[in-house]
């Protein structure tokens, strides 16, 4: 009985102990389960949006669809820049069993260059995982066949069909159009990265670069559901790409051909403009290059050849070539002299063949001295001085105006200022003044320098485009528009934008025009040689820009100079004189003088004035 009682007591005590433990365990369970429930509540309800977004990022892959680049056509709708289908060899590195081996066998099969491999390595750094990296563009049928046959050893290799830029006119418009090229590391900054997803090419120079934003279009995006292994399951939604805008140029391919063939092998630049709009009708820079070569990676040797050539074929001389404007500025200076009343229409200057400043023994020669051994005439007025390009008259005029008045007068014609043409990397030229010389050269202006500037030499430099604008301002009696290659973007006309105005009395304009008409039509005119058979009236002005300074008392002997030291020739013109339809500026490098330039202008004017419209 006692044992049983003892057992009973033990039992009761042990029950108490274990019940206590169960109670504590129950409390722990409640706390733990509530805590965990809160954890799930926190993740699922409080942080739901974040995780939902994270889940979407997991499953949704964004694929880009490249837009079609805008086409460029000339004023008559001739295609200048188009997109043609081409086949591209690409490798998806993740899918290649042995990338190096694949590259090696491709090199053997297709004759890939080191440049191709380098560009491939470069492109690899910029792309998304699991996307193909282009290796060779524009596969030929033969190359396609080689790839197809060897498909089994080329893991990760695919052939993509895509549109690639093509310039049907080849080198005819290389400088104006520019070209597109594969996007390089420096071509776009981080903020533009999204806009270029899926796009492989970007406008590098010329119109292609200037109108990049319009031509590019907008990338299409499709959102695709993928699983963890990257397998695409279905398209969730899709934003179609927006094709780039089409550009219609003022440019006329026919006129461009005429200008190009008239230039022949001469280095130089030609620009023709519609004076009523500033529209650029033709723009030639010789020597030329074929922009097609750049589209899918020019070979290094080809590029080095273009880059290092002394003839600088990559330079667009129309906007980047800077030359002394020489006598082409004489009509503008004449107008300035009349306007500022330092001369009148009847002012005459004696021309003994040279000019001297009072108290200065130095003789500033007239170009005629070398030709005829004498000056132009005893009495030269403005009209004749323009027609015959009399240097002495303009030495005198320059002396009367002074350098700063000259600078102001030429500034209103746009010399020394950017024209704002719709091309990148335009040069500004130089319009010297006392202030300019102090600032740039760091010394005072000398009176003799004024005379040199008076005939467009010395420090003064201008681009052919600037002279075309200045000529427009003459032709229209004072109004020039900002030059523009593009006439319409996607059919919407680009409105002409006033660039500069020059005001002068009507009789002053008449007098200057008379001189410019005489240049072509009077027997002593410097461009008399282009007159025969002219079916319309032309106003023009020649210019002969010295490349090397001729020492005092030395003579310019063309035979003794190397080709690159010979004078440049200029010719500016507009036609018809009343209500002009076309303005032309021609520069021929190292051609000897203006007489080599006006035949180019004549050919262009003939073409333009006789066109059917």
């Amino acid at each position: 009985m006692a044992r049983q009682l003892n057992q009973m007591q033990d039992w009761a005590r042990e029950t108490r102990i274990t019940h206590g433990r169960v109670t504590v365990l129950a409390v722990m369970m409640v706390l733990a389960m509530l805590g965990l429930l809160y954890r799930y509540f926190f993740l699922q309800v409080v942080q739901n949006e974040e995780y939902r977004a994270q889940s979407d990022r997991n499953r949704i892959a964004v694929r880009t669809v490249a837009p079609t680049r805008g086409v460029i056509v000339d004023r008559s709708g001739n295609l200048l820049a188009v997109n043609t289908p081409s086949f591209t060899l690409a490798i998806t590195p993740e899918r290649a069993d042995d990338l190096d081996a694949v590259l090696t066998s491709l090199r053997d099969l297709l004759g890939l260059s080191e440049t191709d491999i380098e560009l491939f390595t470069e492109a690899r750094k910029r792309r998304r995982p699991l996307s193909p990296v282009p290796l060779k563009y524009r596969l030929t049928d033969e190359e396609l066949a080689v790839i197809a046959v060897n498909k089994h050893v080329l893991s990760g290799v695919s052939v993509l069909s895509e549109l690639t830029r093509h310039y049907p006119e080849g080198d005819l418009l290389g400088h104006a159009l520019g070209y597109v090229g594969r996007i390089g590391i420096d071509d776009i900054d981080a903020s533009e990265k999204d806009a270029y997803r899926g796009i492989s090419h970007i406008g590098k120079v010329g119109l292609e670069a200037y109108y990049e934003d319009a031509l590019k279009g907008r990338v299409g995006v499709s959102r695709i559901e993928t699983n963890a292994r990257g397998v695409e399951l279905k398209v969730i939604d899709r934003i179609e790409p927006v094709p780039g805008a089409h550009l219609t140029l003022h440019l006329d391919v026919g006129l461009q051909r005429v200008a190009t063939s008239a230039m022949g092998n001469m280095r130089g630049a030609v620009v023709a403009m519609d004076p009523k709009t500033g529209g650029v009708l033709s723009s030639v820079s010789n020597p030329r290059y074929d922009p097609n070569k750049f589209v899918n990676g020019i070979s290094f040797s080809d590029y080095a050849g273009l880059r290092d050539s002394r003839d600088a074929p990559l330079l667009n001389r129309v906007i980047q070539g800077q030359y002394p404007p020489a006598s082409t500025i004489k009509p503008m200076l004449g107008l300035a002299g009349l306007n500022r009343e330092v001369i009148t229409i009847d002012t005459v200057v004696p021309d003994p063949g040279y000019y001297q400043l009072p108290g200065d023994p130095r003789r500033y020669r007239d170009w005629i001295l070398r030709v005829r051994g004498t000056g132009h005439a005893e009495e030269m007025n403005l009209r004749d001085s323009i027609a015959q390009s009399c240097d002495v008259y303009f030495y005198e005029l320059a002396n009367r105006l002074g350098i700063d008045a000259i600078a102001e007068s030429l500034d209103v014609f746009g010399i020394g200022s950017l024209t704002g043409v719709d091309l990148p990397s335009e040069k500004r030229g130089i319009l010297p003044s006392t202030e300019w010389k102090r600032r740039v050269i760091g010394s005072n202006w000398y009176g003799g320098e004024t005379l040199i500037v008076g005939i467009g030499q010395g420090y003064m430099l201008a681009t052919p485009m600037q002279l075309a604008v200045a000529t427009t301002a003459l032709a229209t009696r004072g109004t020039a528009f900002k030059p523009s290659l593009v006439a319409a973007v996607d059919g919407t006309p680009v409105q002409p934008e006033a660039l500069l105005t020059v005001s002068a009395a009507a009789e002053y304009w008449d007098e200057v025009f008379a001189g410019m008409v005489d240049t072509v039509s009077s027997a002593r005119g410097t461009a008399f040689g282009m007159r025969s058979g002219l079916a319309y009236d032309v106003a023009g002005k020649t210019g002969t820009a010295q490349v090397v300074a001729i020492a005092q008392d030395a003579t310019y002997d063309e035979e003794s100079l190397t080709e690159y030291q010979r004078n440049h020739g200029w010719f500016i013109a507009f036609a018809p004189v009343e209500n002009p339809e076309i303005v032309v500026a021609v520069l021929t490098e190292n051609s000897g003088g203006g007489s080599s330039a006006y035949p180019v202008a004549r050919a262009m004017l003939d073409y333009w004035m006789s066109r059917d419209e």
Partner: protein
Amino acid sequence: MSNDFSRVAEVSSGELGARSRFLRVLHIDLWLVLPLLMLSIGGLFVLYSASGQSDVMLGAQMRNIAVAMAVLLITAQFRVETLRSVSLYIFLLAMLLLVAVLFFGVGAKGAQRWLSLGFIRFQPSEIMKVAMPLALAWWLSKEALPPNFRALVTAFAMVALPSGLILQQPDLGTSLLVATSGLAAIYMAGIQWRYIFSVMALGIASIWPAWVFVLKDYQKQRVLTLFNPESDRLGAGWNIIQSKTAIGSGGWEGLGWTQGSQAQLEFLPEGHTDFIIAVLAEEFGFRGVSLLFLVYALILGRGLVITWRAQSSFTRLLAGALVATFFFGLVVNLAMVSGLLPVVGVPLPMVSYGGTAMVSMMIAFGMLMAISTEKPVTRAMR
């Protein structure tokens, strides 16, 4: 006093009626069996979705459940006294097998957990899951509670030996569960709180030496990744990031059955096994999770009631240890999938795919039912 017990028992059995007597004869505890059935059947839906609508896996799991339920019923038929009398032998057998694994074990992925008898492969550690609480309950209830120091030393040795053997396989998850079942029995036996706190202090103090000398690199990586999953997005952090993403994107209502993108598009690893709660959370939302918690709460609650009502120290220790172990496995799984604990291989009880763990768990619940349906007179008559 013995009459009091009899009367209580008679009153309660009188209230139960004929159907309950039938259940009682079969040793079925409805409050335990029903939630377990709900879990395993509900789990089938989740598994079907988590396995990518695999009929094969669904069929296999249904077979697992059928076997497990049979095991549950069979185990429940044992008399508690029988269980008690064989507990030491089962424990010794399990130890023997664990040692055998050490020498003859087979396995995969660098872990040696399986013993092959030619026609059947099994994990002795699963047997230890059952043997451990049985043996500890037997050992501790042999003498009066609370256990004296000598008994405790033996008890701790009985826990440490098999746990250590399993740990070195390596199988951290099972080792923890086995150790927990033994320690839970010691806790139930009334070990003094000062010992408990001392052990806890010792545990905290041993974190550093464990880190340096015991944990393997992959285990350390799991711990480190827990604190900063983003540090290794595509490696060890992947599981945690993806499971949290799956859980979090479920919201209140979930994305719908078989509609969870994390689970269906294979972003979630181990979605049908250890991480299956993430699939449930993604597809059924917080509502589904709450329901799951409720079912688990029913099971745990019933387990505690059974423990409370158990009539001998042995049965209370055993029941308490079994319930606590179930609880521990549950908490570890829920916490690791939601990023609160390092990833250790502990499945979600009754829901994760897999037969072995389910069977050993059903043996545990079978024993619980045996305890709950034990005739009260047995004890009183002794």
